[in-house]
């Protein structure tokens, strides 16, 4: 049902010229090639990569219904008022059953329509579970090369453990809303730990004070001085030494209140993001985050290529045969996997 012929049209070099020259139609098509992992995608990315690295990448994550899309819209408007251009990538889930997706973030983003300084693209997760799709980072690279000053990446509505955004974005916002959980939720591991800025949106709703208290208590316990390093593929949190002369140089995670529907607190949030951007540059943390992002990109490329080689080396039908043998308990999945991997 999904198997349309791959697009074999505009040549990769024409797409590259289009992206760099500000042609929105060719930019959109280049993004599709990258998202579809079309044969020319790696040539495209190779040509565009040297032009990337200028944009500040802002991740926006949080549970479904906390107002992420509305907040992204309001934030983009603030950036436009400040004279900067904005690229937006908004991700919604793919059905694990049909492979289809309903991408609904545009419904909240109508205020951005007609502004040539904004480019918004919806993406489906296409089977990825970390809150992004596997090509999101590559699509961000394309928008970065196209010259957008700020790129906002909105994850799917996440639960507790989808923290992939932290290795894609420079500044990660975690959005909460009043009434979604108590103090114990706030001290659980996962999503809250990746926040550079915590935002309680819908701050005009009942339960605001309690949510704010819970989050602030969580920040007090954490001591607010952590850094992330990547170690054997895992995000590790490293507490910075708490020395008094270092105290001022550390980034302080604070809780900000917004009401995205009427822009309350959104300009203050934008200024806080910019403050984080300056802190990243001055503290040397930016290089660390760039390393994290590049290591992540490299790993993804290698993994994708390995997957492709594995898929290509398994003889047609062999996988199904093995599955059936395992089902009849004639084989076990461990030795079957070893057999298949020995063919690669």
């Amino acid at each position: 049902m999904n198997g349309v012929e791959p697009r074999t049209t505009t040549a990769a070099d024409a797409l590259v010229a289009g992206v760099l020259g500000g042609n929105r139609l060719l930019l959109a098509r280049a993004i599709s090639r990258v998202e579809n992992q079309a044969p020319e995608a790696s040539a495209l990315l190779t040509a565009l990569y040297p032009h990337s690295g200028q944009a500040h990448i802002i991740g926006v994550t949080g549970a479904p219904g906390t107002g992420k899309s509305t907040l992204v819209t309001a934030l983009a408007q603030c950036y436009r008022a400040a004279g900067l251009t904005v690229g937006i990538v908004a991700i919604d889930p793919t059905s694990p059953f049909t492979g289809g997706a309903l991408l609904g973030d545009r419904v909240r983003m109508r205020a951005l329509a007609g502004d040539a300084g904004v480019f918004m693209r919806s993406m489906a997760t296409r089977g990825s579970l970390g809150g992004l799709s596997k090509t999101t980072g590559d699509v961000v690279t394309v928008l970065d090369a196209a010259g957008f000053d700020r790129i906002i990446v909105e994850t799917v509505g996440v639960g507790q453990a989808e923290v992939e955004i932290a290795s894609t974005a420079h500044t990660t916002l975690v959005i909460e809303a009043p009434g979604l959980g108590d103090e114990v939720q706030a001290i659980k591991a996962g999503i809250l730990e990746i926040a550079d800025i915590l935002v309680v949106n819908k701050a005009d709703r009942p339960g605001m004070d309690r949510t704010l208290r819970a989050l602030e208590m969580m920040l007090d316990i954490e001591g607010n001085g952590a850094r992330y390093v990547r170690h054997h593929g895992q995000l590790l949190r490293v507490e910075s030494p708490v020395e008094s002369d270092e105290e001022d140089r550390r980034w302080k995670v604070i809780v900000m209140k917004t009401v995205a529907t009427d822009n309350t607190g959104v300009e203050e949030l934008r200024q806080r993001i910019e403050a984080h951007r300056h802190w990243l540059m001055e503290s040397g943390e930016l290089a660390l985050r760039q390393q994290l992002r590049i290591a992540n990109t490299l790993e993804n490329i290698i993994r994708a290529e390995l997957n492709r080689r594995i898929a290509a080396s398994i003889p047609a039908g062999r996988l199904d045969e093995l599955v059936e043998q395992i089902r009849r308990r004639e084989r076990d999945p461990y030795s079957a996997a070893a057999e298949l991997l020995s063919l690669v």
Partner: protein
Amino acid sequence: MSERKIRVLVAKPGLDGHDRGAKVVARMLRDAGFEVIYTGIRQTPQMIAEAALQEDVDVVGLSILSGAHMTLCPKVVELLRAQGQEHVLVVVGGIIPDEDVEKLKAAGIDGVFGPGTSSEEYVNFITSHVRVPA
């Protein structure tokens, strides 16, 4: 590892706010394995064409019940073509009088679907008509 999905923009142009039909169709197409970008109500032809461009869709589906289809639908086609999206399939669903169907087709609308159209009809039409861009 190339993965290509049919992308469909579902939009409601004009001022009528009755979006149940559009949502039902969006859901049908989602269940058929398409990536559906749903824009919601009160979209201008300009907003629809610009969204279709940014999202690089294969199909634009317009849901319209207000009677303004003869004004709004050809305008969407015209804007899509003007920005270089000649290949995009444009279909219209809603309440369209029989005498207007041929006129819409003459204006570049590829398919017109009334109430009661089945999921299979939509899906078959789209999969058999979707075009590769120039």
